């Protein structure tokens, strides 16, 4: 039993942290968010240069053959810095689907470029009315003489407007299947928007979008298990990202309690506020423990039930802690916390969204109970 990051993991997390502190402070991030593209190609290239985009991919494709645990420290750094670049959709989600379900040719076509930072992906899966049910897929894929034709609408596709390729879920006559599509393929239209947590996402409309026979990713009709596996992996990453964001929220709130004076004394001398701060820290420690659980289980495809139940247990606690810590951080900052000028209000927005990303606490409670 040990909870340590090994030396390589520590070094990597430390170098990412140092890089972000220098090149991605709050002011620089603000400019990235306000830019037309909504993400920074230089930052992305730097992350690829540092090897961060390649960690969880096999060395055959230029990666490092790493695990979710190898990414925990990096995700914490992203959460701290509120990174808006499409790391989660590219590396955590769609990239995992390709790596776990793709043919040799698909992996060769996608992964090396992804690892080099030259290819960004998005996973077009969620649909109106699906809520968090992964099996709710109404988008249709029909076999044609020359391959496939996809029709349907995908909603809230994270990273879609800035992706080069999309992994799309669609129902064939055999069931839910995955397809790898060019975002600029005929019949694919993306309506972009800014998310509350300042990332780029979009609605994806597939109007008889055409794809070749090689577009099918994994076995036809058998994509659900793969989707759950990749979503669990991404959920584990987002748990660690949340831990990084929560750590910032706790630290900055504690600092505020020590410096802000009212009635002639620092407000941190008031017991009513001290106990609330303590409860935030307890929430944080519990959340960190659960992120360790999620990271450790995320790669265990062998025992899918144990993996899924552990990830859900983690997400329940993380979701609760996201709400608790973000709300308290704002409350303890008083009016200042409401201001867009303070980073903590942006952390609030990210934590608010993470609480529901890949399923809220209620969704995971039901899953956790179902798998008992």
């Amino acid at each position, binding site marked *: *039993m*040990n*909870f*340590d*990051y*090994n030396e390589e993991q520590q070094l990597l997390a430390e170098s990412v942290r140092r890089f972000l502190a220098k090149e991605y402070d709050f002011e620089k991030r603000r400019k990235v968010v306000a830019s037309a593209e909504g993400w920074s190609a230089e930052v992305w290239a730097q992350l690829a240069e540092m090897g961060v985009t390649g960690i969880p991919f096999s060395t055959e494709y230029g990666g490092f053959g790493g695990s979710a*645990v190898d990414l*925990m420290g990096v995700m914490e750094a992203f959460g701290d810095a509120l990174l808006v670049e499409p790391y989660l959709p590219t590396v955590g989600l769609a990239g995992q689907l390709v790596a776990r379900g793709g043919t040799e040719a698909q992996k060769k076509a996608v992964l090396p470029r992804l690892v080099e930072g030259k290819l960004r992906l998005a996973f077009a899966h969620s649909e109106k009315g699906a809520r968090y049910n992964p099996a709710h897929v109404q988008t249709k894929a029909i076999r044609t003489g020359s391959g496939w034709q996809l029709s349907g609408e995908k909603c809230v596709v994270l990273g879609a407007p800035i992706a080069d390729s999309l992994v799309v879920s669609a129902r064939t006559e055999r069931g839910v299947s995955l397809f790898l599509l060019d975002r600029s393929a005929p019949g694919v239209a993306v309506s972009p928007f800014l998310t509350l947590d300042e990332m780029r996402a979009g609605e994806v409309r597939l109007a008889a979008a055409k794809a070749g026979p090689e577009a099918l990713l994994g076995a036809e009709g058998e994509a659900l298990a793969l989707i759950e596996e990749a979503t669990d992996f991404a959920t584990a990453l987002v748990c660690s990202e949340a831990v990084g964001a929560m750590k910032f929220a706790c630290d900055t709130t*504690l600092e505020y*309690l*020590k410096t802000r004076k009212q009635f002639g004394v620092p407000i*941190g*001398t008031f*017991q009513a506020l*001290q*106990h609330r*701060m*303590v*409860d935030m*820290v*307890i929430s944080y*420690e*519990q959340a*960190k*423990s*659960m992120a*360790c*659980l999620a*990271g*450790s289980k995320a790669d265990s495809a062998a025992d899918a039930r144990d993996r899924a139940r552990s990830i859900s*247990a983690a997400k*329940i*606690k993380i979701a609760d802690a996201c709400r608790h810590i973000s709300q308290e951080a704002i409350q303890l900052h008083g009016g200042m916390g409401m201001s867009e000028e303070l980073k903590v209000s942006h952390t609030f927005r990210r934590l608010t969204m993470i609480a529901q990303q890949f399923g809220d606490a*209620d969704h995971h*409670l039901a899953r*956790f*109970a179902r798998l*008992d």
Partner: protein
Amino acid sequence: MDLNYSREELAFRDEVRGWLAANLPQDLRDKVATYAELSREDLLRWHRILARQGWVAPAWPKEWGGTGWNVVQRYIFEEECGYAGTPPLIPFGLAMCGPVLLRFGSEAQKKRFLPRIYNGEDFWCQGYSEPGSGSDLASLKTRAVRGGGHYLVNGQKTWTTLGHYADWIFCLVRTDPTMEKKQEGISFLLIDMKSPGITVRPLILMDGGHEVNEVFFDDVKVPVENLVHEEGKGWTVAKYLLGHERMNTGRIGASKRELAKLKEFAARQPGDDGRPLVEDTRFRDRLSRLEVELIALEITNLRFLDQMRRTGQPPGADVSMLKIRGTEIQQSLTELMMQAIGPHAQPFRPIGSDAEFDTFAAGVAPRYCNFRKTTIYAGSNEIQRNIISKMTLGL
């Protein structure tokens, strides 16, 4: 990072588990499982079984009978005991007076008291709280005046757990009331409960049980050789001991056992629609949340232990988190069990024959009542928050 126990740790766990399965007497196991009251003899019997095995005081130095286990092994042992449902080891001698004597006692005191504590020959209790001194322990008033070869002790202690079983009591007393700081002028005395002038009066709690007492001291003579550490330095001893008292309040093994019991019970108990209660979504959500809390506590506990093992640092204010969450979970378990049992939580005591009386069901609500103590004792959870606020956060 690897959340699993190592092969050696698993082997150790299996050894403890196997030994407990073979050596925990069935009648004691049953009593714990049915929440029956444990007598002085029950408690001492289990204590002596462990003493014979050499496992009763794992944390003590080896020369005094300690096992030499590291913190993780000690944790595994405690959790296995909790999970197996052994009677508790009463901490006042083993985990409180013993460590104090080891740290502050004279050689003569160690030789006189430690073997008797180890072998379960003396039953100890703790004389800390007073009617006017609860969380503000240092305000205590029980007076000890030195004269000749003894102290003359007058005053009152309260909430004295198992004082009615005890042979000895360790007490904080005020030897010098003139000091400006209330933490000064306090001394740590060991007092024979058979001394003339001591009266023990039961305090019956709301669950109907007798576990705590008031202890009155009326001109009680205590030989000066029973003073531990220097006169007036009792607060140093008390602070050291409070750290020890908070060590094992996570009680994860015992909570796991209660959770398993609750799940099993809720699977047999019908809900309003006749289907098992455990399938009722509202109940099920409460149950799941509690299980997740317990998982989070267990991993946090292991994380702190791992940190301790690696850095060699004693547990700091982190332990307060385990106390807060651990006791909240223990309380929630008793509450949910009471809720699961539904209307049958109401019967309390049979009148006349108890042939038709479900004593297990009748024990569930009193247990809920009794467990309200957990967030109050051993430094209330609010005091624990004060500790974290000051020690960890620097507020």
